[in-house]
């Protein structure tokens, strides 16, 4: 899995490439949490364009990040999500806490 992060307008943007499963969950968790701490960002936008697969471990690690940012009033958004990934996010109820957008700028405007 490849993860890169950038901060725009005080929002942490996380670009993810690969498969979000139990194998990659720890890497995802630690790199997002480290970037959150160093940037002091409140909200997170996940750009999932490069994510081809997600299962409950991937859903769980996103939920964990939500629990973290929501304590301080932060929100999650996701952009460029592939249909098979949208289906799993929807099925797991995650779309109730993370809105989907077509582009990073749309997501930034909403936060």
């Amino acid at each position, binding site marked *: 899995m490849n993860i890169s992060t950038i901060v725009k307008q005080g929002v942490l943007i996380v670009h993810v490439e690969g*498969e979000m*499963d*139990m*194998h990659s*969950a720890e890497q995802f*968790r630690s790199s997002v949490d480290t970037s959150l701490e160093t940037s002091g960002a409140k909200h997170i936008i996940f750009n999932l364009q490069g994510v081809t*697969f997600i*299962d*409950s*471990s991937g*859903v*769980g*690690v996103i*939920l*964990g990040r939500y*629990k973290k940012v929501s304590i301080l009033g932060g929100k999650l958004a996701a952009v460029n999500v592939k249909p*098979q990934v949208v*289906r*799993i996010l929807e*099925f*797991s109820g995650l779309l109730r806490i993370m809105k989907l957008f077509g582009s990073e700028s749309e997501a930034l405007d909403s936060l």
Partner: protein
Amino acid sequence: MAINNHIKMNFTSNSENIGIARVTAAAFAAQVDLTLNDIEEIKVALSEAISNAIIHGYGDIVGEVECEMFLSDDILEFIVTDYGVGIADIELARQPSYSSDPERMGLGFVFMDSFMDELSVESALGKGTTVRMIKKITNDKAH
């Protein structure tokens, strides 16, 4: 029912192997005329079964996971076995949001249940767990 194809994989409970088993299952399922959605569902269900074997069956120790795939005329069957700690209460473990880890939603069995046509779980404490999952082939016969 005649078995037209069969694969048996054995691997150590390293999380790298989940992706390898998933790709194998997708290729195995692609022998028959399934939709991309069906294949995606099989990948998710198998991923959940193997993740459970690794996390809950073995935890910090390394053990063997067995993964068998069968193709018959109208079904694909996947069997995942571990020889780990076993599940004390299978009914409880199959409930949504049953999880020992706050970062997990306890959705593993929910996904397996929803994405496959049949799911059965056998477990014995201290001996291990076997998960059997069946996907019906409704579109076409095996090539």
